[in-house]
């Protein structure tokens, strides 16, 4: 643990040394930035009970997924920016929980969470490390919900393939992050977004289930500034 911390510290020191050597960067009003990176979405699920007919305490869990992300930002002023997160659909596994814990993966769903945030970036435009906070909206667009043989077996054994739908929702998001300027054009970015998202699953066999997903998205990326 200690050793790992030491090497991480060394790495950070190296990055700092490297960036200090480069030209002063600017993240000033009118700048447009594009960033690509990886984003891991981890839902923190609080599942309601599936409605009747179901075993009491039938719950659902949703697994995490990591996908590439594209972030576009525009510096409205030297400190205030608008940011848009786009990306390919995330594919999450739906897993049995509660009374049906142990049944494993029952289905999958894709979700597109385009997110728009207004941010406040601390310090001067040319500061090397600029932490930022943001708040905004995420539209959770669910698609391609898929059941499985196991889901059919649990809901309607011998019946037609069972499936489900997740309700699309607009949700609030808050963000915390920091950019590290390498030079005038390039920068690294780490950020974490917490989204407060509740949705409802409606199964083809008629039951519904309220699921609070409240995902945390952690992204790391490399960005480029256009002036």
């Amino acid at each position, binding site marked *: 643990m200690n050793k790992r911390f030491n090497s991480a510290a060394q790495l950070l020191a190296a990055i700092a040394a490297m960036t200090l050597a480069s030209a002063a960067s600017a993240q000033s009003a009118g700048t*447009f930035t594009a960033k690509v990176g990886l984003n891991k979405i981890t839902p923190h699920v609080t599942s309601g009970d599936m409605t009747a007919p179901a075993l009491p305490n039938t719950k659902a869990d949703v697994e995490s997924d990591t996908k590439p992300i594209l972030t576009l930002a525009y510096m409205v002023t030297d400190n205030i920016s608008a940011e848009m997160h786009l990306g390919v659909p995330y594919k999450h596994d739906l897993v049995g929980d509660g009374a049906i814990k142990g049944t494993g993966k029952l289905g999958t769903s894709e979700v597109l969470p385009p997110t728009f945030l207004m941010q406040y970036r601390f310090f001067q435009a040319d500061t090397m490390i600029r932490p930022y906070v943001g708040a905004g909206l995420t539209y959770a667009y669910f698609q391609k919900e898929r059941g499985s043989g196991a889901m059919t077996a649990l809901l309607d*054994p011998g019946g037609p393939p069972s499936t489900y739908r997740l309700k699309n929702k607009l949700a609030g998001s808050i963000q915390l992050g920091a950019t590290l300027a390498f030079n005038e054009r390039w920068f690294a970015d780490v950020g974490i977004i917490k989204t407060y998202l509740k949705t409802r699953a409606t199964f083809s066999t008629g039951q519904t289930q309220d699921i609070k997903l409240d995902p945390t998205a952690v992204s790391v990326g490399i960005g480029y500034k256009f002036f």
Partner: protein
Amino acid sequence: MQYTKFALAALTAAVLAGCGGSGGGDQTLKVKYTAQVSFGDSLSDVGSYAVGTVAALKGGKFTINGDNTAINPELTGKNWTEHLAAQFGLPAPCAAETGLEGNAAQGFSVARVKKAGCFGYAMGGSRVTNPVGPNNKLTGSALGALTVPVTTQIANHLAASGGKFSGTEVVFVMAGGNDLLFQLGSLQAAATAAGTAAGSATFASTLIPLLAAGATNPATAGAAITAAVRTASAAPGATTTTIVTAAVGAAAVQPGNSAVASAAVYGPMVTTAQTAATAAGAKAGADYAAANGPALVTAMGTAGTELVALVKDQIIAKGATHVVVNNLPDVANTPSGLSKDASTRALINAMVSAFNTQISTGLAANDKVLIVDVFAVSNDQATNPGPYGLTNVKEPACDLTAAKNPLGSSLVCNGSNLIAGDVSHYSYADDVHPSPFNNLLLARYVAKDMVTRGWL
């Protein structure tokens, strides 16, 4: 800047446009079974008695028979084994042996036939090893159920399939319920007989001194009345009324006792005697049941042990690899169980528990056995029906009156002889057998355990 905004909007639109509807997804199951072999009783019977008058009455399974989905989508007429066979992608299960050995005049005598390629051995009334179950011809039943015991069902399958299981079939075992019902029925009949005998004796011994008390010589009068009661009791068609008439007649002719002939005098005496008789009869019946109940609990434990041995020695040792054993459901909470008094229900619970304990200990940690705790779920359904979608867990959905249902059983219950109202989500079809909806719930419960085990 205008261009940037446009690019953003276009990108968002493009991403959002990549939409798709929901679907069933990959329906492939973890294990592909080549056949479903089912041993047991009425709970899994797929039509062993669907012949003769039973078939004519549109019956054959122990639930609400027939596809009545036109009345309600839940009235599928299917039992749990049929849902699961469909889930496994197998043909609809069929009864391995059909026939009836009952009253020919009533259409309950139909030759026994073994059906090649049918592996639904489970049969209404079947016990674990005892060949005589409820409604077997040897009980005097007009139906003449075959009640082939599970031990013979397995032997029949082995005989039909080269003495072994293939190892690629799924085997269902659900039995023991008739061992309980049959023995409980015998106990109750014997207890009732004991109670009746004790009641009659107490009735006479209470009434005679009361009737004799007014006579000049009560001792002589008592002897005379006793003799009269004895004669009247032995006479064909004796009833309480005939006995009382004889006793009062004998008492009134005794010297000094003519007043007793008046109903105003002897009436209260008879009432007193009846009260004493009822109390004595109930006590004797309860005493009999209490004395003999423990033997039934032991017998259920034995039946459980026998079933464990059959699963181990005749199913697994013969090559089966996926054996699903359902334990006994909560019999005390069936309409039949609910109609019994508290001590009988306690006895039922002890019997179920004795059987299930043998199943769970005898087959524990066996990688070829999956024990499904049907008791737990049926017990929960009885007290917590809402989440299961059950609307009634205490009353049968079938109209079991003689006019509507000549057998008083779900065996001949269908869409035309249900009680009034929406019974689609009732738990029970008759006094012990589940409705099609509850059969679906059972199929789902078994499926859930199979998925968890990696068997489905």
